[in-house]
Every structure is written in C-alpha cells, then in structure tokens.
C-alpha cells in the first residue's frame, strides 16, 4: 500500500504549497483549513467541475483528488492525508443507488463508518472527516459541502495528527 499510486499523488499534491492557501506559520495570520477531497470520477468530481464552471463561490481550502469510485478510498488514504497535514478529509461519491459500479458507495458507506470509529479512538475528532453524496449535476451542493466543511474545520482548528511521533 505504501507505494500506491493514489497515495503518491496525494503526497505530491498536499506537500506542494497551493497559491491562496497559507498556513499560519507562513504568515497568513488566521488559521486556514486545508482539506483533502477524494472525489469519485463519475459524480462528485463532475459536480465539483460544474461548481467551478458555474463560478460558484466557495473557500479555496480543498485539494481535489480524483478517484474512480468513492470505494477506492482506502482508510490508509485518510490517515496519510492527516499525517501529511490535512486538517479535514472529504470523501464524496455518487448518491446511494447511483454508483457507476453499482454498489461501490454502499461499501464506502460501511468502510467510512468503521474508519470513523477507529479514528475517534485514535484521538482524531469525528468531524474532521466527512462523507457526502454529490451527483454530477449538483454543483451548488458541492459548493455548499465545501463551504460548510471548511467552517467546521475552522472551528475545530489545526489537526493534531500532524504532530510527529518520533524518538
């Protein structure tokens, strides 16, 4: 898993500074949440695209990573995002019943619920991860989800998992 393609892409994207997003240490003053969004190719990514094309307003807090289906999102991706410095992780896919691969998002739903329980036990607040269903035609909903989630994370503050555990 360590050399997984999607994980590598994540490493690259999140570790490279994004224009418009400044961490407090970089002199940005207030805390600017950084969110990693795993968006399924067939619905949510298209929904995000639509939000962009429609020029809907939303905070520039999210790095989008396209996956073929929400069920591609291994719990490891979520953990890795947190370790790499994300303050929140969004997983978005087609509405239940609409997955391009029929049942992928039912699996996502169960896996997500279990991941959440494990993360909580490991000291990460449950509100730092979010699963949302956004279809290809729901640009507005996508903008809403990102705006809302950014506010939640802003309130939660920087993620504690970033602190390294080394001897």
């Amino acid at each position, binding site marked *: 898993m360590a050399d997984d393609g999607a994980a590598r892409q994540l490493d690259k994207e999140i570790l490279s500074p994004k224009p418009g997003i400044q961490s407090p240490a970089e002199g940005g003053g207030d805390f600017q949440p950084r969110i990693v969004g795993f968006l399924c190719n067939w619905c949510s990514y298209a929904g995000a695209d639509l939000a962009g094309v429609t020029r809907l307003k939303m905070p520039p807090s999210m790095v989008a990573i396209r996956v073929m289906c929400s069920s591609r999102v291994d719990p490891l991706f979520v953990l890795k995002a947190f370790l790499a410095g994300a303050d929140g992780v969004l997983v978005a896919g087609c509405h239940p*019943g609409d997955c391009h691969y029929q049942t992928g998002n039912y699996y996502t*739903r*169960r896996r997500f619920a*279990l991941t959440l*329980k494990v993360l909580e036990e490991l000291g990460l607040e449950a509100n730092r991860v979010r699963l949302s269903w956004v279809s290809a035609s729901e640009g507005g909903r996508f903008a809403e989800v990102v705006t809302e989630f950014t506010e939640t994370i802003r309130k939660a503050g920087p993620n504690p998992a970033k602190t390294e555990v*080394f*001897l």
Partner: protein
Amino acid sequence: MAKPKVAFYWCASCGGCEEAVVDLAEDLLKVVDAVDIVLWPVALDFKRKDVEAMKDGAIAVSFINGAVRTEEQEEMVKLLRKKSGLVVAFGSCAHIGGIPGLANFWDRETIFERVYKDVPSVRNPEGIYPQQKTKVDGVELTLPEFYDTVYTLDQVINVDYYLPGCAPPPDLIMNAVTAILEGKLPDKGSVLAPDKSLCDTCPRKDSKPEKLSIKAIRRPHEVIADPEKCFLEEGIICLGPATRSGCGERCINANMPCRGCFGPTKGVRDQGAKMVSAIASILGVEDEDKVTEEEVESLVKQIDDPAGLFYMYSLPASMLRRKRMG
C-alpha cells in the same frame, strides 16, 4: 574457526520470547554448539560493560525481543546495533510493537496515574510517582526515562531481519538460525516467514463461502465457535485476512480467532486499516440497497473497541503510531 558470537536481549516484552528460545528443546543444544552466546540476561551473567568492551561489529547477530519504551532500552539497542553485524527483531513486540504497544492509547501521565494511583490494590494518598532522580539520604538515585510512546525496534535502530510472532514458533526460529549460520539469508529487511495471508493457509478456509455477509458481530466469549467454520462466517472477528501466515495457525487450531501477532503481509502498510476494509466488505452486505445510514451505523457500533482490536499487535507500527492525546 571461532564460533560466531550471538546476543539475545529483551526490551519491553513479557518474557515469552525467551521461553520460545528454550522451546527449541534439543535443537537449542545444536545452536549452543554452533555459536558463542555473549549476552543473554535471562540465562547468563554477562553485563553491559562486557558488550561495551567488544569491538564494533564483533557480535555476528543480536536477537532483540520487545518494543522500546524506556531510555535504557534505547541505549541498549543502540549499543547492540553498533556491536552487531546483524540485528534480528525477534517477536511481535520488536517487529510491530506487540501487546506493550497498546500502551500507545495512553501516555506516561495517564499510565502512571492508573498504575501508581487508581488501581484498587494501590494506596498512594501522597500521589508519589516514579522519578528519574530521587535523593535518598543525600545519595541521588536514578531511573531511566519512561517514554510517552512505545516504539518498534526499527523505529529506533536499523533492523536487518524480522522474526514475527507472539512468540515466534520454533520452526521459524530454527530456519532463521540455520539460514544465518549457512549464510543463506534473503534480502535485508525481510520478514523471515511466508508472504501469504493466514486465510490462505487456514484449515477453515474452504468453509468460507464465496460471498461472505454477516449481520451480527459476536465476541469469542459469547459463543462456542464451530470448530470447522471460518470465524468470520460466524460473525466472530478474525484478523486472518490482514495477517501473515507462518504461525502454524496456532489460535485457529485452539478454536480462537487470529489477533494478528504475525503482522501484515509484505504489501500492507497498516494492518488495522486493512482490517477495517476487510470487515467493511462483509458487514451487512445483504440488501445493502435497503439499508439506511443509521442502520449502517448500528451495524458498525456492534464492534467493541475496533481500534484496539484491529491494531491489537501493531499500533506502534501503524501509520499514526499512537493515539493523539487531547
């Protein structure tokens, strides 16, 4: 020719790995014949200064069991690293943290509070805790630092090989010793056990239906498990899918589910995360299209302490390494 020098050392462990060496039975005599043991605190009276007096690299191989959780352990393993050609992480605790690694759900403060104050059999009204330095009659006594976090051996020093298991079984130990003596070792960094999942070699694997779906989770003490059926099929969580084979299916043969002591197979970075995926793929799959979000949650809620269960042996080796304390 001088016999190769061998050291055994223990860190945060239970002593079971020492037992495993003794469990070699007659084979132990062969080993003792072939090597020169220069350190083995449980059995022989060599001291740290004896090791310090040796030339760097003088020890052919050090077998170190136990995780690293104190300053003294850190110093000793660093010393052994310097003096040894090869270091083998012996047993689950050195390999992936093991049971002592569950302490990573707490930190020093919460552990001390529990152990030296809250435990019902302890009376400590003044709240006295172990100190690194104490003055007694004008003399300063010292204790090594107790770290907040338990580390795997390879998080502290370079490790050449891993012998997995709680404890490693005699056949794998003998294979490893023979390979070392004959110089027929695999690539550095290898785990000296088969790279297959436990389910692959499990005697119950044929009873596992093509498509598993479970609704109710049961804990081992709540039911008498069918000795023929795959545990998962009965709703008993078994870490076989995310665990490396090689133990001889010890727990399964005792009619207990696997708890993951061999660690994951080669390609898996995080055993617990793998288990999350494995369980999610079989939990309430039937009629999944009619299941509501709330029902999904209550399905998942049945699993008591999933982090403690899925990372029972491997929390220090996991991506997060420990719980983040609030």
